């Protein structure tokens, strides 16, 4: 299977990556090379094989339903959380205007 330039542009848009014409032109043959190569997986009959869901089988662990059980991952750390924000204002994340 191969992808067209339009399809790559669509994938880039789905992935939220802006790509100019030159970048798209470079990416199309590269993606097609890789996709051609992974096509060989189709040679393997997997009709009776279950897809892997966990590489090391483990029972799912659930944490206790307790607020702030771990102070590092609980709430109340607004300053830490906002410390790396590119545009923090009034204790919130600033974003471009979404609604006119």
């Amino acid at each position, binding site marked *: *299977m191969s992808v067209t330039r339009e399809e790559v542009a669509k994938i880039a848009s789905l992935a939220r990556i802006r790509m100019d014409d030159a970048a798209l032109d470079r990416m199309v043959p590269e993606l097609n090379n890789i996709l051609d190569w992974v096509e060989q997986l189709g040679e393997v009959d997997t009709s009776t094989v279950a897809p892997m869901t966990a590489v090391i089988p483990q029972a799912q662990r659930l944490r206790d339903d307790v607020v702030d059980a771990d102070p590092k991952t609980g709430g109340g750390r607004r300053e830490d959380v906002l410390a790396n924000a590119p545009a923090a204002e009034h204790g919130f994340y600033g974003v471009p205007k979404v609604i006119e």
Partner: protein
Amino acid sequence: MTDLTNLGVKQIRDGVASGDFTAREVAESFNAAVEAAASLNAFIVTTPDHALDAADKADADRAAGKDLGKMAGVPIGMKDLFATNGTQTTAASHILEGFVPPYESTVSQNLWDAGAGMLGKLNLDQFAMGSSNETSYFGNVASPWRKEGSNAAMSPGGSSGGSSAAVAARIAPAATGTDTGGSIRQPAAFTGICGIKPTYGRCSRWGVVAFASSLDQAGPMARSVEDCAIMLEAMAGFDPKDSTSLDMPVPDWSAALDADLSGKRVGIPNEYRMDGTDQAILDVWEQGKEMLRDAGAEIVDVGLPHTKYALPAYYIIAPAEASSNLARYDGVRYGLRDLPDPGSASGAGGLQDMYAATREVGFGDEVKRRILIGTYVLSAGFYDAYYTQAQKIRTLVQRDFNDAFAKCDVILAPTTPTASFPLGSLNDDPLTMYLNDVFAVPASLAGLPAMSVPATVNEDGLPLGLQLVGPAFDEQVVLNAGLAIEQRAGFTAQPEKWW
């Protein structure tokens, strides 16, 4: 006094504990070596004060007669994929440039708790995506090794190339690495050092920048098998903050090290005899068999029939997980933000434009390539043909290993199909670059412990590694077989200092 930078983890720890030298002297020696090796570009940032503070604490604890940790007085390099509280963590990307975590990864915290200090944050392939260390936003790492009679800069391997270069150049006694499809073992092989990827789940992934969550696993890189065992004991352990963390005790691997392999069977997978593999690699594989036979092991043939499908399956699964994991980098909560001017040709300056512009400038080409592949194979209409099929192949690869381990205790294989190559020589050819990991990826897909140990140098004077793969949870058999090779190979080659 001998040059302290020639010492490894165990020698430093024991020397500090017995008072042969102080931890501060060790930290000062390595800090100076790091500073003098800037031309390797192994570090993105250096943290000499962190190393000195940890050293002073180790020296004070010793003076006070307190128990010293497993890594007390040992300054290490930390791959810049581990979040370090108060120290910039970038995953070698522009999008995280300047990001200073307000938390510490579990693995790095475990190491500090064991008495280690940090020399700095080590360069890597961007988001750990690469096999040559040429995708970092902060420039290539140069291997300390060069071909005999040549000044060409060589690849230290990837993605843990800053780690491998620093340990091989003796500017760090040991370093952390992470391995998604071979990123500890391949760089270890390229630079003549040891590195082990433990069983998936041994080391917590909490606070490690995620690439492909079902594959990512941290491990140590050092100059001896024993140093790797000691450091892995310090890194590993159950972590309730990582839902895939193994809830099992950490064995005392270093105390149980034993190179006597009597009664052990070593499996040789003939599917690893692939076209394009250097004759020197095939030769050293033969020598490896002899070494393990000499250590008392019986050599048996095993079949891993789906080996050739492991790499293409990996290049569906890893990008699929990466495209999902890297969706978090959107310019809102942390990292870079690029906001197009309203009314410009490139966008209206809205939220969607901000996401797209931020990710365009924030990610490198290889990262974008993998995000696009991942987005494609997960998209409606292609999910089953690509992703589900790859996960089924993964089941078959794991089944192959399970069948093989019914016949043997540990598998011996080459680590890489070739020795290191000059930087820049494979840049235009992503697929050929991917083939570097052809021998490393199968164990990653199956979640198994696997190690590379240096075995010899080729005719150009470049190191070649041998790989040992064990059953899940059995790091010990991997380390023991690695030790048997280390003792017999007598690998003492060192890069000639040019930096």
